[in-house]
């Protein structure tokens, strides 16, 4: 698995396949990226569970915080890790104790732990590192194009009505990879230095 550049097909399958997402490191502070992503994904219809031991007893947009993945009372499809790279491995270890296992481990923009990824992949999970699911969702549905961002997709079909809770439109032709390989290469160089 090449973790420097993911195909759109891979990301699209994950975002279309998962229904419940536990977000480890979710913050109730409304200017934190985790809050942005949590709210956005909840509005797109995902069953979001905020995981943060510092906020147990409170809730995030109506969803009660839990202290750890093991405290979640239902199967979860994806664990999204909003922690620095050095804190990722323990979360993955915990995720691999869940029964049933989650299908996906997703590490937020800036987060990367190749050993943790290898461990999760060995257990049959899909892994995404150093990406934001909000950005990827917005990109693949072209919603992010409103901000002048290169969605790296094309479509000659009428766009879906942009309403809250819209689902990913699958009919876009992917143009990913090569067209922004400069940014992928830069990310790899930064990871090599880190």
């Amino acid at each position: 698995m090449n973790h420097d550049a993911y195909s759109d097909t891979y990301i699209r399958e994950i975002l279309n396949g998962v229904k419940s997402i536990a977000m480890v490191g979710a913050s109730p502070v409304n200017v934190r990226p985790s809050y942005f992503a949590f709210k956005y994904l909840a509005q797109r219809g995902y069953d979001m569970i905020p995981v943060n031991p510092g906020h147990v007893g409170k809730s995030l947009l109506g969803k009660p915080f839990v202290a750890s993945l093991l405290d979640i009372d239902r199967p979860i499809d994806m664990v999204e890790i909003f922690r620095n790279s050095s804190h990722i491995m323990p979360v993955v270890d915990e995720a691999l104790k869940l029964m049933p296992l989650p299908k996906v481990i997703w590490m937020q923009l800036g987060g990367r732990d190749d050993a943790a990824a290898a461990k999760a992949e060995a257990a049959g999970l899909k892994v995404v590192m150093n990406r934001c699911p909000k950005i990827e969702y917005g990109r693949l549905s072209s919603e992010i194009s409103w901000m002048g961002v290169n969605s790296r997709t094309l479509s000659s079909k009428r766009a879906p009505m942009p309403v809250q809770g819209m689902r990913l439109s699958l009919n876009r032709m992917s143009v990913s990879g090569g067209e922004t390989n400069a940014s992928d290469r830069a990310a790899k160089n930064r990871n090599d230095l880190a």
Partner: protein
Amino acid sequence: MTDRLPGFSTLAVHAGAQPDPTTGARATPIYQTTSFVFNDADHAASLFGLQAFGNIYTRITNPTTSVLEERVAALEGGTAALATASGHAAQVVVFQMLLQPGDEFIAARKLYGGSINQFTHAFKSFGWNVVWADPDDIGSFERAVTPRTKAIFIESIANPGGSVTDIEAISAVARNAGVPLIVDNTLATPYLIRPIDHGADVVVHSLTKFLGGHGNSLGGIIVDAGTFDWSKDNKYPMLSEPRPEYHGIKIQETFGNFAFAIACRVLGLRDLGPALSPFNAFLILTGIETLPLRMQKHCENAKAIAEWLSAHPAVASVNYAGLSGDKYNNVARKYAPKGAGAVFTFTLKDGYDAGVNLVSNLKLFSHLANVGDTRSLVIHPASTTHSQLDDAAKIKSGAAPDVVRLSIGIEDKEDLIADLEQALSV
């Protein structure tokens, strides 16, 4: 579905555009509106807090303009783009993101005269200090680096002389200095040169020129390559530090590899105000659809005319990188194998007066201060675009008093040559 990479011409027609969700309109509609309704109070708050993607006000985003932005980002191989009212506005926004008062940036001495003026005079009042370097002497860039250097700025094909810049060599200097390389790609367009492929971190354009291509609309754009780490050493607080304008958001942390374009939009364009008109965005978008076809014709005509001028007895010299034997021909072959552009200069044996006569005797070429039109254009830079420079600076920037600049259009080249021939023989 496999991930397939479409070609440049397909992107020029399709990137960013999709049939309108409400009407099915296939051409991109002109959303000539100042403002956009919110779904509810929470939606409004989410948009203002940068938590949701969407439109608030045309000074910040507009659905017609965003199609243009995505299209140019795709053509340049960048992660995102931000359109502005002009190329000059794009440069102000870029440098406002990067420089604090007292900071420096290094710029190639061979630049569009308007940029030289902007950097020398207007930027001075902001406390932004330009340090000039010679694009033919890479060492001059290295020697110009100081602890206050925040960026390096060059043109891929330099105006007015049409010289081609060694982008990779200068990008290495920028990388060693830990600063971004900004490339003005106006004269090349991404059809001829894609600076990001050669190490540029930011690309700017005057869309007014070849991209719009029809001489009818001003516009500028900033393309984010997604390559630069703005948070590495706190040199770029607009991107790395909590922004009080947005309750403490850190732009790069939140927006990753398109953070520069977002910062230019939500800090630069929002507060400085030089937004592009949606109508201009529409005209420029329409122009871009034929960019590959037009650039082929522009380059073919330019080469033929440069060759014809080289053999004319009244002509002293022709500076066109597409001519074999030109000083920049090898660099041009490397960076712009499809053609060396359509803007170049030449000098007449009888000097300044012969240049003035030529300009006044031409019947098809238009005497005006623009380049990159469908029409062929002519100007005498020393008395116009570069007139504010002193003689030494004119010569260094390629605009000596005997220089005439041409921007070759897409007319029949035989007619253009005939016009030059009659004007030179009067």
